[in-house]
């Protein structure tokens, strides 16, 4: 990513450098050549439409090239690969809490292996922060109340700066850390020390403890939708809209269940706002994702048939 950004940056430096040089040379030449001399009067020139069009059109074409190039780089920056390793990030005044899908937890440090795509699923516990790794040329604001996503692939082992780039109060400049990029072997060794088990497993435990599993059953008989296989699929809502069940949707359903209720279900789910921490929401989301991803092949079909939208009859009558 850094290479792509730098290439565009260097292109811009060259183009803008040449334009600056052109303007400054013209200014300097005109200033010297046409300085006031006694007896020589200025020549009044009205203007030139041809020139105006030229110096509007040429910059415009250059601008469009820069725009398109910038947009391509941005699209790559904003589109995480599907198979990226996932790390959940919770920002708070003034620290970064990171949790690997495998269950490793870190504060203000993130260990990643060289050459692997890493996707950060980020939220904030309080104000807006911004997860900035200058060496990778990436930055994404971290918002309270929803997830934002950022991804990178480190290509060289080393320790890189991690900064909070959105002003967040007293210790904003202390909200810094390191990205530690390791060779795969070293990374595995680090990974094997002191894990509390995968995030999805703690999520599964919580799913039972919080009583989620009493309604969200593994069959079609629950009072809430069966969650198997819903992740990444379209969901029909009570108000007629269709949304994709991504991380943000799952999160919203936990914290504000009434907002986007699945078609065919009663508004009986209580809100978990204030009852679960950001880390616990992350674990729950990780668990729900795991029961969608783990079962592949033919079992995906069965889970899809058990998915909530299948329970609604074509005439709109509900199976309750």
């Amino acid at each position: 990513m850094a290479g792509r950004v730098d290439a565009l940056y260097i292109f811009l430096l060259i183009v803008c450098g040449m334009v600056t040089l052109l303007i400054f040379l013209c200014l300097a030449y005109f200033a010297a050549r046409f300085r006031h001399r006694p007896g020589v009067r200025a020549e009044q020139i009205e203007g030139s439409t041809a020139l105006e069009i030229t110096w509007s059109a040429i910059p415009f074409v250059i601008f469009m090239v820069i725009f398109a190039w910038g947009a391509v780089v941005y699209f790559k920056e904003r589109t995480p690969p599907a198979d990226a390793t996932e790390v959940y990030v919770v920002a708070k005044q003034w620290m970064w809490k990171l949790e690997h899908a495998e269950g490793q937890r870190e504060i203000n440090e993130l260990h990643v292996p060289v050459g692997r795509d890493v996707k950060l699923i980020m939220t904030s516990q309080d104000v807006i922060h911004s997860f900035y790794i200058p060496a990778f040329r990436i930055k994404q604001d971290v918002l309270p109340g929803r997830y934002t996503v950022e991804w990178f692939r480190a290509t060289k082992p080393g320790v890189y700066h991690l900064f909070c780039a959105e002003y967040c109060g007293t210790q904003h400049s202390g909200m810094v850390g390191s990205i530690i990029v390791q060779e795969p072997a070293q990374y595995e060794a680090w990974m094997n020390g002191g894990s509390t088990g995968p995030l999805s497993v703690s999520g599964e435990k919580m799913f039972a403890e919080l009583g989620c599993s009493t309604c969200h059953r593994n069959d079609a008989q629950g009072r809430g939708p069966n969650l198997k296989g819903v992740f990444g699929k379209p969901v029909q809502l009570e108000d007629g809209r269709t949304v994709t069940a991504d991380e943000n949707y799952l999160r919203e359903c936990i914290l504000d269940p009434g907002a986007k209720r699945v078609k065919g279900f009663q508004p009986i789910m209580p809100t978990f706002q204030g009852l679960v921490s950001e880390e616990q929401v992350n674990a729950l989301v990780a668990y729900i994702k795991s029961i969608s991803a783990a079962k592949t092949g033919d079992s995906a079909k069965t889970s899809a048939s058990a998915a909530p939208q299948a329970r609604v009859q074509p005439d709109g009558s509900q199976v309750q």
Partner: protein
Amino acid sequence: MSMEIAIPQPVERENYLNKEYGVWSWLLTTDHKRIALLYLISITFFFFIGGFFALLIRLELLTPAGDLVQADTYNKLFSMHGIVMIFFFLVPSIPAVLGNFLVPLMIGAKDLAFPRINLLSWYLYIIGGAMMVHCMLTGGVDTGWTFYAPFSTNFSNTKVVEAALAVFVAGFSSILTGLNFVVTIHRMRAPGLTWSRLPLFIWAHYATSIIQLLGTPVLAITLTLVAAERALHLGIFDPKLGGDPVLFQHLFWFYSHPAVYIMILPAMGVISEIIACFSRKRIFGYSFVAFSSIAIAVFGFLVWAHHMFVAGTSVYAALVFSLLSYAVAVPSAIKVFNWTATLYKGSIHYDAPMLYAFGFLGLFTIGGLTGLFLAALGIDVHVTDTYFVVAHFHYIMVGGAVMGYLGGMHFWWPKISGRLYPEGWARLAALIVFVGFNLTFFPQFLLGYLGMPRRYYDYSHMPEFQVLNVLSTAGATVLGVGYLLPMVYFLWSMRYGKPASDNPWNAAGLEWKTASPPPTFNFDEEPVVTWEAYNYEELDAPHKEEVPVAR
């Protein structure tokens, strides 16, 4: 300060300065020229407060450790530096001082359309300013000038509501000035002064006024919502109550991006006047320069979300706003090319105003071109919220707008005060400002691309950034001297400067066809205009009247 003018000769023509004396003749005046001077004194006061904060910021950043002030103090310093400089200096600077003084003079009117509203707008500014001073003296505010929610609404323990209300009140001053200019320019032009004969200064102020009228109310609404959310917990921006903090950013930048054009367009107007006068030529491509001001005002309203490319908006929204940002760059480029072309085959004089104009061209070009970097989506992700952005907008708003303001102050000082400023000192000051400015802000472009985030009080985790920070701080002290000098010699010239003739530069424009300083109602007879703007073919070179004119 204006009341201390000595009378050099026993018999002096009656003018707006000597017509009446006494405090009330100033505080209750409806003369646009006196109100301009009231503004001049007040914004100069705030400029030096804001400058003092800037100096403390730069001193703190001299060393990587946070050792001069405490973290909270530093956060208040950069917040109040921004609020004071933007809302209490830059936004009113050229329009409320030079615009107030010159708009009626340039169009041959006796005063603005609504003289009492003009005075009201100064009082609103003073009330807002007094609230801001009170806020600063009793604890200050630490949200940044951007007031981002939910930090400002739910987390900051400082005087956010008071600061927001101060800006709210000052905003109405800006709205009323804009309203006054729009009506005045439409209704009060002298006979024969058609739109195509208007000085470009007037076109620029017309465009600025439109932005002030349409944009400032949105800022007022936004700040009201912040205050209400803070006091009543409405849940507009607070996600815990179903609000959206990104909504705040949309509302805020809907005003605050066009506000950049409130600051730079009037400076562009000033530069057009100066370049025409000191190259003794009409402006190349007059109508393109005039309409590019209007184009900037219109497009300026459509680019706000380019401040939010990493804020969590959709990829497609970002695409649209990036594209539109390049569209607004075209009229700015047109202006720079036309000014450069105006010099061609001119007869160029290097008086202080022209040196400031050259400074403006250099700094605005760099500021504008680095804007192209920020509008490029892929690069913005890396450099937004770093010192790259800080450097970019200072090149536009200080390098551009303040250079224009100082250039204009020198150009029209003989008209305003009736005195000539010391030319040698003024040229020296222009040079010091230019050098000091570049030394302060150019290193910040490098810091930004290397990844130093803005609003960092302590950079002991990245001591590699110290060298560039030291350069920047050194530049700031040079720049400070450059800004103090004009204030000293302008004050000096009010007592000791040579009396100015009516038209010391032999400049075109109606404001030079009346006395210096002008009488209270500007013109003894209503002028009738039969010529185009910048009819320099009919005017001799300046400097023929170094000796004081007979009165």
